[in-house]
């Protein structure tokens, strides 16, 4: 029973969550449309996970409005969760059960009729490519298999929305690509995806719309392309191993905005041809030319200092 595209699945207005000493989420507004992948991008401690927990009714809202499926979260949390699947940041599969039992037991928590459960479990095992491991203990699975099982488990109730908190953190690149493929498949089936991540590539690939959060606030929102166009020049030249003096050689006569990042300098520009020509004259400088992306937007908006 997926909602037709264009309807609002989540609506947050001045949404705020404060603990005794600080506000993890500080007056955010956003709208998630049905059938889209909506991303929350931000450094650690930005308020992404707290926002998801409020959407699921797992933590009380301090102030502001939050409606999911048109229902007020503070009064209808269980109904909202009945139509939602959750992939938590840390796997919490049940170690006392096998792979298939994990899915079957989870179906019970959703109150699914017993007669429907075996077919659903088989379908999801196939989706997660775990059919051959159905009787394995979960601790015998690799990290990637556990993640796939967790995603399959989140689909047991055939949810309208799937909430994923850093779905690919800590996985190797092959596994991440497999997971991304599965998530794209879910979107094709019309499910709304809500995703937190700090992988720019993940956000760029999957998200139709995203918000960049920091210190509990939304810094900007839009599609990945819109955000890039709005905040950074289209091209970047990264200069590595270049001392401060090297910049003097070409900055005065080039259309280039310089940002020191780590031990490199990033040169953001509308037109790289002239600078590249200059750089080729300086063999001791390593440089890399690329199109700008979300990472550049992210660094620009959230600053460069380390977060813990």
């Amino acid at each position, binding site marked *: 029973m997926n909602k037709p595209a264009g309807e609002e699945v989540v609506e947050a207005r001045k949404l705020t969550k404060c603990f005794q000493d600080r506000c993890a989420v500080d007056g955010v507004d956003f709208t998630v449309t049905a059938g889209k992948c909506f991303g929350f991008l931000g450094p650690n401690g930005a308020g992404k996970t707290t926002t998801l927990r409020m959407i699921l009714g797992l933590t009380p809202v301090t102030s502001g409005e939050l409606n999911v499926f048109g229902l007020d979260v*503070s009064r209808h949390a269980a109904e909202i969760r009945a139509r939602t699947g*959750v992939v938590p940041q840390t796997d919490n599969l049940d170690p006392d059960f096998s792979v298939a039992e994990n899915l079957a037991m989870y179906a019970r928590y959703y*109150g699914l009729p017993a007669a429907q459960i075996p077919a659903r479990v088989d379908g999801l095992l196939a989706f997660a490519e775990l059919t051959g491991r159905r009787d394995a203990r979960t601790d015998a699975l690799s990290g990637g298999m556990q993640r796939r099982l967790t995603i399959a488990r989140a689909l047991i109730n055939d949810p309208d929305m799937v909430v994923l908190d850093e779905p690919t953190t800590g996985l190797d690149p092959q596994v991440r690509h497999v997971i991304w493929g599965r998530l794209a498949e879910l979107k094709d089936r019309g499910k709304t995806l809500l995703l937190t991540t700090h992988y720019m590539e993940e956000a760029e690939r999957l998200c139709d719309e995203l918000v960049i959060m920091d210190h509990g606030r939304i810094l900007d929102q839009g599609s990945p392309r819109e955000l890039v166009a709005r905040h950074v020049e289209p091209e970047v030249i990264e200069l590595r191993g270049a001392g401060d003096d090297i910049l003097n050689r070409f900055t005065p006569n080039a259309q280039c905005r310089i940002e020191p990042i780590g031990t490199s300098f990033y040169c953001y520009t509308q037109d790289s041809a002239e600078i590249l020509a200059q750089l080729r004259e300086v063999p001791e400088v390593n440089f890399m030319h690329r199109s700008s992306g979300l990472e550049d937007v992210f660094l620009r908006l959230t600053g460069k200092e380390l977060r813990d």
Partner: protein
Amino acid sequence: MNSYRLPRVRRGALAVWQRNIRVWRKLLGPAIAMNFGEPTLYLLGLGFGLGHFVGDMSGLTYIAFLASGVIASSAMTTASFEGMYSVFTRMVPQRTYDALLATPLEVDDVIAGEMLWCATKAVFSGVAILLVALLLGVVQSAAAVLVIPVVFLIGLCFAGPAIIMSAIARSYDFFNYYFVLVITPMFIISGVFYPISTLPEPMQGVVQLLPLYHAVSLTRPLVIGVELSQPWLHIAVLLAYALVGYYLAVVLVRKKLMV
């Protein structure tokens, strides 16, 4: 979402109970060894060994006196262990509660399911002791089967406080306080090993506030086949402990997890 609002018990509690019984079935061997082994040793060792010197107690053979009391105390310890070590494991290191609460289940359902499960385990231990007592010729009347629902109620009564301990514990070591300060003293003074009439009078008054005294007051007459005295009072006390325990456990688990 006020943490103090009254809990509602819904059908979801049964799913939580079902989870636990399925896990228990996988570990049936050690579970049954525990259920039968420990009380059998108690009854044989203390009942015959100590009973030889004690002779009769309150007009009963010592083994009959002991068996009819241990059935209550064993329900207490079984429910308490489950409500602490197992519940804490599911709540904290194993993150099972995080997984449960991501579904439509609420803390109310999870704790109700856990308490039902603690009480079910108490019944397993009670049935085991009843069978051992039957073999030892202690059980005198068919009314002894009524011990089964009573033991279930005893399990509910002690599950709540144990889950409260899980909600406030930072690690397993914390449970030592509860055992040393609450469970063990109650075990010793509530009439399991000797009638409380031998205690000094002010002490008897204190003991009558303790749930284990009321538990033993129900199990002993049922097992040995004499008439119950004030059964509704004892049932009411156990039920009150169970309900208040459930409420406080739900509130404290909400405060711990729903932040």
